[in-house]
């Protein structure tokens, strides 16, 4: 087993031992595991199915039904553009286009350097600040195309530092 696989197995075991083994615990188990791993690997889903004594298909069905769960590892930072009604009417779709151009990825994708995830979100309830983009966990209000570069700026030194370390 690779280090990654061992890590997945260990974390899955931890979450399973902490939560119950009833069908009703499935969603909380998946949520906690995603919080730890950032995504839900196939191996972990199989493990959960075994532990709850339900078909793997049922776990996969739940994971793919809900928008929150992801099957691939996330990028380092998440950019989520709100597309609620207020944001849309105030130009959220234009902002989304600006993000797409800037990061050269489509919603649901991760940049090749695994720095940024681009995604959309239905509504984060900050309609008074429309259009909103949620960067990591912080909702930013009134994000117009001209603000896109400014929002990414603080991440630049962080990445350079990181790259320097790798070398």
């Amino acid at each position, binding site marked *: 087993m690779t280090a990654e696989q061992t890590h997945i197995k260990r974390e899955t075991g931890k979450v399973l031992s*902490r939560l119950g083994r009833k069908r009703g615990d499935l*969603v909380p188990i998946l949520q906690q595991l995603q919080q730890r791993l950032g995504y839900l690997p196939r191996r972990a889903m199989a493990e959960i199915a075994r532990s709850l004594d339900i078909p793997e298909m*049922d776990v996969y069905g739940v994971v793919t*039904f809900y*928008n929150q769960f992801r099957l691939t590892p996330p990028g380092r930072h998440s950019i989520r553009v709100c597309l609620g009604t207020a944001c849309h009417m105030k130009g959220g779709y*234009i902002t989304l286009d600006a993000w797409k151009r800037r990061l050269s990825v489509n919603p649901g994708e991760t940049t090749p350097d695994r720095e940024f995830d681009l995604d959309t979100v239905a*509504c984060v309830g900050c309609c*008074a600040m429309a259009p909103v983009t949620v960067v990591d966990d912080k909702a930013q209000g009134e994000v117009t195309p001209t603000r896109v570069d400014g929002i990414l700026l603080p991440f630049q030194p962080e990445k350079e530092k990181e790259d320097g370390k790798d070398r």
Partner: protein
Amino acid sequence: MGKTGDSGPPQGGAPAFPEIKSRALARWHKLWNSGKPLILVGTATCGRAAGAVEVLQAIKEELGRQDLDCPIVEVGCMGHCYAEPIVTISKPGYPPICYGHVNEVIAGRLVREFITGDDPCLEFVLGALEENELVPSFSDFPRARFEKRIILKNCGYIDPTDIDHYLARGGYAALAKALGMPPEEIISEVKSAGLRGRGGAGFPTGEKWETCRRSPGRPKYVICNGDEGDPGAFMDRAILESDPHSVIEGMLIAGYASGARHGYIYVRAEYPLAVARVRTALRQARKLNLTGKNILGSNFSFDIRLFSGSGAFICGEETALIASIEGKPGIPRYRPPYPAVKGLNGKPTVINNVKTLACVRHIIENGAGWFAGTGSGKSKGTAVFALAGKVVSTGLAEVPMGTTLRQLIFDVGSGITGGKRFKAVQVGGPSGGCLPESALDLPIDFDSLQAAGAMMGSGGMVVLDEDDCMVELARYLTEFTQRESCGKCTLCRLGTKQMLEVLGEITAGKGRPGDIDMLIELAEDIKAGSLCGLGKTAPNPVLSTLRYFRDEYEVHLKEGRCPALMCRDLIAYYIIPERCERSCDACVGTCTVEAISTDKKRIKVIDQEKCVKCGTCLDACPPQYSAVVKLSPPDRVPA
């Protein structure tokens, strides 16, 4: 997420309610009468989006530099979202004064000039919390005439992470009172108060509780539906973040009345702060034996668990929500049996909206007559609305049922931004409808809105002005429901997709004659052929825009033109050469795709091939020139 609500250790020797309350009151009075200035900073999600955390930090740093020690309290949302971040300072000798649009610089000045000095910085004042002779108070605002705060009473005034604040403001007194009443009496009280479900459908709450109480099967459940998925609605988030105990207290009373033993608070995943605040509130309530076994020494035991949603709009539908708690995909099932008869795990279950539950304590405390004294006809009490879109005072407003749309938008919301003309208001989320100017004098209640082709929904109101295209709005809302359809019913799954394609073609100028008739036909079929509320109401945005704005559809279809200049395929940006002030470079600098160049006479020209129609140049062009314009159809741009 997890075992937050388990009944916990036995609560032997827990203090009695009067003792809990007097201790809370003592702490509360000490906070407000410490002789030092008290600072309240609103740090709900909307405040944070506007920079409240940075402001809080700036205040702390400035206090440190001035070597001052003042109590700072993080409070929730007052509903004045347009003025976030909001800071309130209560200094001895002054009324509590609320400041709006505070940034780090203003925060520093408030500390230096008002807290250290004696200048209350009137230039930043939003309003005072009580009437006084120095600054206008919120009660002097024009909107105060229409507002009546019952369930938002505590929001923005108390620390939602401190149960003592809630207790000191009269919290849990209704629970203590209810535990001394027979459950049937509580049900009849709620019934005669005329409380109807605030989630949108308006089902009488008392009847729901009674059905659950009378239905066989144990254990029974109470679920708080906090899966506020309607885009444009954020009042449930604000209540859960700002006053979570009011919802918990409502659940406890609902549980006692309906004979339930367990409760779930279902909060959507997109509201992480609400999840955290509810979790803290549950922990504190359990510690004081306000939940758990033998609550306040009575025979009533009730535990509450927090369940965080996973991002599916459909889970706001009650049977889908239940499926989701059971660990299944959130797919609705046929009703009846209703959840009050057969709900979670097949047992009788009461599902109430956040706002419905937040009303309960006020009914028990003040009586059914008091509650029914507000409101109109068959809709009693107040309604909370989230104002968003092109309205000046965006935020939350609580008004008596029966208030008109005009009062809500123009008096409470202070009208349309930028002096534009009101065009429509989108009420009730994707299931609701768009109402035009002619509907502005409608009283807002469950029945009038339904008759006008909209619905109360969760109370989101997105105000639209003359720049908003109704066809594009209908397309957007259909796209939303299409994406969120769970796929169970064919007409909802495929019909909405078909509708979306037709609408997409119309907004792209590729519509065909007969499209409107096809949309109407599809709408009727989807309504008839869908099981749950999502499908049944999915065509509402299309039907209501067709009802009131059919001419806009026709202009798109026949002339390939978007009258509101919004549909991107039907417009072009153009710089009028005569108006371009040649020495100015504002548009060139802001263009995000470098589509603007300068010609030999220094006049700016947009390269239509490169232009992505983001509108940045239009905003950048100084208003005294107004050289950038939108033209529709795009071939109006001179070659």
